[in-house]
């Protein structure tokens, strides 16, 4: 299979209302924001906002209407860290889906994020497929035949 074919197969479907799935990225690294943005857009996602710290994320989140389908959250950031920002965002919208994307693999941080309601964790460094699989899982989309095709 060529890379182009493989790329084409990694696509998120449209939502029931015909729009594409939307994302908010929270990370203090310009590289990581660009990287996540490039990957999510390649799946057909829309990145609505990128915030460089937890405090900015909470401010931006409040003014967003509609809210993003998924928020990606770094843990170690200036002004307000990811754990605090998860608390603040879930206090405003308990149904918000949040995935922690962090290099810190400490078990206690993962446990803390899960207890707060961020049910998914992606450890940096990641590859495109890691993001694709977790996003589909969060959105409760079946991976489907394209993955079987990759294996074959």
């Amino acid at each position: 299979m060529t890379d182009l074919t493989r790329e084409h197969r990694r696509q998120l479907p449209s939502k029931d209302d015909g729009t594409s799935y939307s994302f908010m990225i929270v990370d203090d690294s310009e590289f990581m924001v660009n990287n996540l943005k490039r990957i999510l857009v390649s799946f057909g996602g829309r990145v609505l906002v990128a915030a460089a710290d937890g405090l900015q994320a909470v401010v931006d989140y409040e003014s967003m209407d509609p809210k993003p389908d998924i928020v990606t959250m770094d843990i170690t950031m200036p002004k307000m860290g990811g754990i605090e920002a998860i608390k603040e965002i879930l206090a405003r919208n308990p149904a918000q889906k949040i995935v922690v994307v962090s290099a810190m693999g400490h078990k206690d941080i993962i446990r803390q994020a899960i207890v707060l309601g961020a049910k998914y964790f992606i450890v940096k460094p990641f590859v495109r497929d890691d993001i694709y699989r977790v996003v589909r899982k969060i959105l409760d989309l079946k991976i489907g035949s394209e993955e079987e095709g990759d294996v074959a």
Partner: protein
Amino acid sequence: MKEHLLEPFADSTVNVLRRTLADETISRSAFESLNGPHVSHGMAVIIGISGTLQGHIIFDLDGKTATAMASVMNEETLSESDDIVHSTISELANMIVGHATSILSANGYRCDISPPTFVIGPQARVLAHRDAPHSAVAINTRCGTVTISIALIEDNSP
């Protein structure tokens, strides 16, 4: 410095670079103790460690290697003066030290890491505490060589 404190940094560097650069040719040297300061090749990211281990880790490379790595990771051709090169190399160092300290934490060492400090310019000298001289390892990749210098002491106070 004890080998079990050094190896997680070399292993994490090899694993993270292999994944981020999609480079299976990566190889490493043995650790070598430095008698004097660490002397930078051009771009050095310093990350402080505190907790039951104290000191710092230096992720050091020349500008050409940094630009080549950042270009692969950003999927575009960059020049050394692009700010995104610094951001990419900082994040790379952060991921490597984050992984290594996770391994050390699992082995019973509590360690927190500081935000990265970037030192730009060749021949910059970084001194270690006299009780914790640097131990350095060279990691060879297709993009060039990265040196990891480690200066850590165990804090045995109650």
